[in-house]
């Protein structure tokens, strides 16, 4: 054995350096900042999981005393209208129950909430696609009419945004050599990370177009580049200052509120604070994927696996990007298999886009 080492850190129980500030209430989290002259914004969210937005009328909300500004999707730059931007404010369609449709900034959060009731949205309700089974069925309602599997426009549009396959050997031969074949289907429902701290931010932009955003994230540079992208601004025009983060678990390195707050600050000339409530966190921020997996394993009596197949369908939510790739890469990875086939599907459904 090696000789005893004079270890300086291993075996000690140091007090965490942020500990004192966290047990005394000093530590500042996302909603703890305040700026002079700050106003508050709230988000109007779709009451439908899937609906065409025929019109949005902000005028009555804007007439309410104490309301400074109101926006909807058409007020964000069309140049940045990628998935991220459309998730932040819906355009043609509301894609999930809770999808942000408009936002109002007012002198108080309560007043902003009241102003939301004055926004008139004319929806045409559509069939929602709520399960993988429904999403991949023949003739399924399309979450996105312009989505083609792996971008292949020679096929009709589909709710399957991407499909990937990994194969080795000959699975038919493998299964035929098996003494036992087990095939099971597994369903895992959507699970939200459930961080105790709701998403929050403050944005302040000056007349020279330079914005500062305070928010609870461990990914301030991601937040900066994403916010710049949605607003079609230079990253050098945005400074993101992270607060303590009250739990993220992968859910706080993306953005929901920040570009809206910057835009409302620009329109009102005031710093704008936005804090989600718990319901908004659950309705509109990214959980992990619900999955439907079919696994088939063939083995000899001595335990040797002769073949295995895995069919993994992951809910992406309303925009592509479920972590099905890592799923495919790991599902059979512990075994040294001669014959395998793995198929992974990134499936759109009318739910919030997954995160982590």
């Amino acid at each position, binding site marked *: 054995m090696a000789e005893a080492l004079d270890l300086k850190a291993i075996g000690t129980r140091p007090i965490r350096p942020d500990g004192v500030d966290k047990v005394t209430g000093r530590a500042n989290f996302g909603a703890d900042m305040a700026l002079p002259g700050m106003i508050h914004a709230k988000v109007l969210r779709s009451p439908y999981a899937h609906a065409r937005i025929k019109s949005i009328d902000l005028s009555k909300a804007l007439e309410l005393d104490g309301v400074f500004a109101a926006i909807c999707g058409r007020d964000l730059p069309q140049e940045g209208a990628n998935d991220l931007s459309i998730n932040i404010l819906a355009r043609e369609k509301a894609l999930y129950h809770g999808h942000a449709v408009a936002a109002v900034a007012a002198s108080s959060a309560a007043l902003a909430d009241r102003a939301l009731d004055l926004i008139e949205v004319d929806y045409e309700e559509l069939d929602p696609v709520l399960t993988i089974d429904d999403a991949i069925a023949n003739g399924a309602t399309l979450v996105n009419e312009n989505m083609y599997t792996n971008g292949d426009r020679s096929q009709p549009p589909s709710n399957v945004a991407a499909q990937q396959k990994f194969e080795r050997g000959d699975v038919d031969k493998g299964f035929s050599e098996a003494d036992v074949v087990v095939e099971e289907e597994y369903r895992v429902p959507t699970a939200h990370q459930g961080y*105790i701290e709701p998403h929050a931010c403050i944005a302040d932009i000056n007349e020279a177009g330079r914005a500062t955003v305070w928010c609870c994230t461990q990914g301030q540079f991601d937040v900066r580049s994403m916010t710049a992208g949605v607003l079609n601004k230079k990253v050098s025009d945005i400074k993101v200052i992270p607060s303590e983060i009250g739990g993220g678990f992968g859910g706080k390195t993306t953005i929901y509120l920040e570009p809206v707050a910057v835009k409302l600050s620009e329109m009102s000339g005031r710093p704008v604070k936005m804090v989600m409530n718990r319901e908004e966190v659950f309705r509109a921020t990214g959980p992990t994927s619900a999955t439907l997996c079919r696994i088939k394993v063939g083995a000899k009596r001595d335990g040797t696996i002769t073949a295995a197949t895995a069919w993994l369908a992951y809910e992406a939510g309303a925009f592509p990007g479920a972590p099905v790739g890592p799923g495919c890469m790991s599902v059979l990875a512990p075994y040294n298999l001669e014959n395998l086939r793995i198929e992974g599907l990134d499936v759109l459904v009318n739910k919030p886009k997954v995160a982590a």
Partner: protein
Amino acid sequence: MKKVHVSTTVNGQPEEALCEVHQSLLDLLRDELGLTGTKEGCGTGDCGACTVLLDGRLVCSCLVLGVEAEGKEVTTIEGIADPDRLHVVQQKFLEHAALQCGICTPGFIVAAKALLDKNPDPDETTIRYWLAGNLCRCTGYDKIVRAVQDAAQELAQSS
């Protein structure tokens, strides 16, 4: 509607603030008095992050109206430590690593101190029952319970 002028005592200090009638005690503490140590996790009394003492009674400040603080005594996380040293509950949370992100910590500490003030020698079940109204997403609770047990032991030895 005009705001209501509320006079209250927070952590032993007289405080005055203007409060809208619909504002919660949590809003009053955070937004009007700037005491942001008390956190909002749910706004519906489920998570306990907003726990404070109101005239000595443990409450979810998100479920109390701000105007109800008129003439009452409020104790928040900011009033737990002495100026020159942490309360033993705070110290034990540090030593047992009973916090991680820290957002639930103020509520847990206010609640745990209230427990020990009332019952200096609680058993584990009592501690878990008392803290059942406080949710933590990081620690898994065991370290929190051990911190409270250790704090009780230390308080017993020092008295």
